[in-house]
Structures are given as C-alpha cells and as structure tokens.
C-alpha cells in the first residue's frame, strides 16, 4: 500500500523518520480529501453567500427577513452543532448522507453565512452614485447590479474572502468528529492502528499532521496574496483584515 515501503524498511524501526516515511502517503490522501472538502464547501458558500447578500441588500421584506435570520442563526452557533444537525439530524427525515457529503454541505452552508456578510459589506460600501450613474446611462436594475455593482464588490471582497478560504481550510478539520476521512481523521486512525514497537505515537503523528496544515495554510496565503496583486485596480483596494 505504501509505495515507499522498501525504502522505509531501511530506516531504523521506531524512529521519527521511519514514522514519517511509513505514514506520509496515507496522510497525503487525507490531505487530498481535506482539499476536496474545502474547495467544494467554499464554492457552495460562494453561491449561497452571494444570494444571501443580494437578498439582504436588494430583497423585499420576506426575502430580507429569511436571509437575515439565516445569517444570524448560522453565525451565532458553532459549526460543530450545525454538522451534528445535518449528519445525525437529517436521517430523521429519511435523508442519509455519508460523512464527506454531510461535511461539505455543513461547512458550505456555514461559510455561506459568513461570505454573505463580506459581500453585503462590499456592496453597501459602493456609493449610491454608481447605481444612479448606471441607471442614467440606461442600464436596467439587473444590468446595473451585474455590470457595475458586483464587479466592484467582488474585487473588494477578495481580501476578506481569502481569509474565509483559509478559515474553511482550517475549520474543515472538525469534519473528523463526524468521521470524514480528511487529514485529521486519517491521523487519528493511523495513530490508533499502530502496533508493536511503533505503537502509541499519537503525539508524533499529530505533529506531522500539524506540519502539513501549517504548510498548506502558509502556501495558500502566499498564493492568495499574489492573486490579489494581479486583480488589483487603483482606487478599489481594500485592506486585508
């Protein structure tokens, strides 16, 4: 199963390097799942967040109320409780999800509420004059939102949105509590399955897990910084919090 096995055999049994060699292929599989979870959740959150934000800024009474209540509820409660509601709660309604799907939906719905607030803040920070000018040129309301308001709002939202991506990556680790086979869970499973002289290495396993998270977070932060530089427009900068 471990393609490095022949090489690992040559390392001293019970040493830290041997441990790294033995378990890193499986940990990387877990990392791949973590990324899959993060990307799908953030995408779901993006679509949901945008709709919620439009609902909160431009929506009529019932839409405004629903989207506001959703955002307040989600932001006021722990993501873990939300995951429990989805994973353990939905089967009561005959909806059974595997842990990964439940985690994607749970983290995505959670992120939507936070992203909605970034988008709302950005949309509202765009002066009313932009809308007036767009209407004066003859654009319809929907065209004005599509061509003038959103392009500006989306650019302004990149810095807080970058933070949200990193947050989701970090918070995806809670999925391990409902048994999603992501990085944390893989670490836990490996640590519990070690036998013989290599057993009881939880601390070291989680150190390696921590190191992988650290590298992922730092590398992605750097990439997002570069992205920000590329799409920057004079006068539309927004400070990264």
């Amino acid at each position, binding site marked *: 199963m471990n393609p490095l096995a022949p090489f690992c055999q040559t390392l001293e049994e019970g040493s830290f390097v041997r441990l790294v060699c033995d378990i890193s292929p499986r940990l990387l599989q877990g990392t791949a799942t973590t990324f899959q979870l993060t990307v799908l959740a953030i995408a779901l959150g993006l679509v949901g967040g945008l709709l919620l934000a439009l609902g909160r800024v431009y929506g009529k009474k019932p839409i405004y109320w629903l989207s506001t209540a959703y955002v307040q509820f989600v932001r*006021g409660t722990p993501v873990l409780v939300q995951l429990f509601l989805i994973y353990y709660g939905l089967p009561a309604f005959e909806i059974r999800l595997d842990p990964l799907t439940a985690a994607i939906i749970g983290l995505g719905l959670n992120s939507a509420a*936070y992203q909605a607030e970034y988008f709302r803040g950005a949309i509202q920070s765009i002066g009313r004059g932009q809308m007036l000018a767009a209407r004066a040129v003859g654009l319809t309301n929907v065209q004005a939102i599509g061509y003038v308001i959103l392009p500006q709002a989306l650019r302004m939202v990149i810095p807080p949105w970058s933070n949200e991506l990193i947050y989701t990556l970090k918070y995806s680790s809670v999925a391990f509590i409902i048994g999603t086979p992501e990085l944390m869970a893989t670490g836990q499973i490996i640590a519990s399955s070690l036998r013989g002289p290599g057993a009881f290495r939880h*601390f070291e396993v989680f150190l390696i897990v921590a190191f992988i*998270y650290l590298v992922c977070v730092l590398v992605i932060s750097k990439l997002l910084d570069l992205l920000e530089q590329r799409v920057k427009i004079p006068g539309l900068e927004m400070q990264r919090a």
Partner: protein
Amino acid sequence: MERLDLIWQSLPLLWEGARVTVTLTICLLGVGLLLGVPVALGQVYGPRPLVILISGYERFFRAMPILVLLMVFFYGLAFLGVSLPAFGTAVLVFGLHSSAYQSQIFRGAIQAIKEGQLLAARALGMSRLQAIRYIVLPQALRLALPAWSNEYSGVLKDTSFVFAIGVTELTRQGWQIMQRTREVFLIFIAVALIYLVLTYLGTWLLELLERRFGIPGLAGQRREEHGRVV
C-alpha cells in the same frame, strides 16, 4: 408533547454544559488577554529580534487549526509526562490560540493611536514605560473593545471543539443526551439556541462595558462587516 418534555428534562444537563462552556470561554479569554497584550506591545515597541520572534509565534498560532493544536497538546503533554486535566489543556491551547488573535487586535489599536500622544507624554518627562502604561494602553484598550467583543463570540463557538478531547461542555452534553434518547433535532436546536443566547448576551454585556468606559472620540471600529474574527 412528549418530545418537549424531553427537552424540559434535559435542561438541567444543558445548563450544566453551558456553565462549562462559559467558564472555559472566560478562562481562555483571560489567558489570551494576559499573553496578547504583552505580545502586542512587544511587536510594536520591542527590539527587532523580539519582533521577529513574536511575529513567528503569532503567525504559527493563527495558521493552525485549533482542533489540531488541541490534539497535539493533548497527546504532547502526556508524551512529556505532564498530566493536566482535559479542561486545563483546553484553557491552555485556546488561550495560546486566542492570544495570537488578541495580540493582532491590540496591535491594531496601539498603532491607531497617534504618534503625538507618546511624544507628548515623553515631553512631560514620562519614561517610555510610563507613557505606554498611562497614555497608550488606556486608549488602546478602549479602541480594541469592539473587536475584542468579536473575539468573544468567535471563541465561544470554537469551544465546542473540545468535544474531541472529551470535555463535557454544552455540545458534548447535547451529544450525550442524543446518544441516550435518539432525539437529534430538538436537542441540537436547543443547544444552538443556548449558544445564540450566550453570543448575544455576552456581546451585549461587552457593549455595556464599552459605554461605561466610553470616551468621546475614542470609539473603536466594529468589524462585524467582515464576519469572522481575523
């Protein structure tokens, strides 16, 4: 009706869990505050090597998922032969994690104070330390309060992660009741509502504090627009 009865019977347990959650939150915020203020001061006023060291500390704890930190410390302390109850481990880990975030809040507040304040204090003959103690900090702490209140609502929710190391706070109480009764939705909606109440109650109390100590022209910026505490 039977189900509502179940909630009614579970309330004492949930109340017990909520107490643990609140205690944990207060303790970790205290640890974070005690560490966060010096860290911020060191980052602004410290010599270069200290600044680098502190920035590394801050960067590390902010980059780490809190759950991973919990596991590393939980097993790490045992590995080093230190026996600390799970609750103590939680306070330590969350405190360190929060100190990194809080130091950012305080650093921002300190840097928002105009240079002239420090100069004026020095001109009066105050030492650097005195100037920080009597001029900078009283202003910075006021400026930081709104953002700090965001940190409160953020960590309150994050405390649910101690589920993983077996501390029986609100979420775990709910989970145990669920295991026993097989009732999921009502229990976790109740748990969620308690979190909501705690979030808004705490934020309201901090707002009172803000008003009690408020000084015209020294109001901090609320960062709610940007959602998560960053």
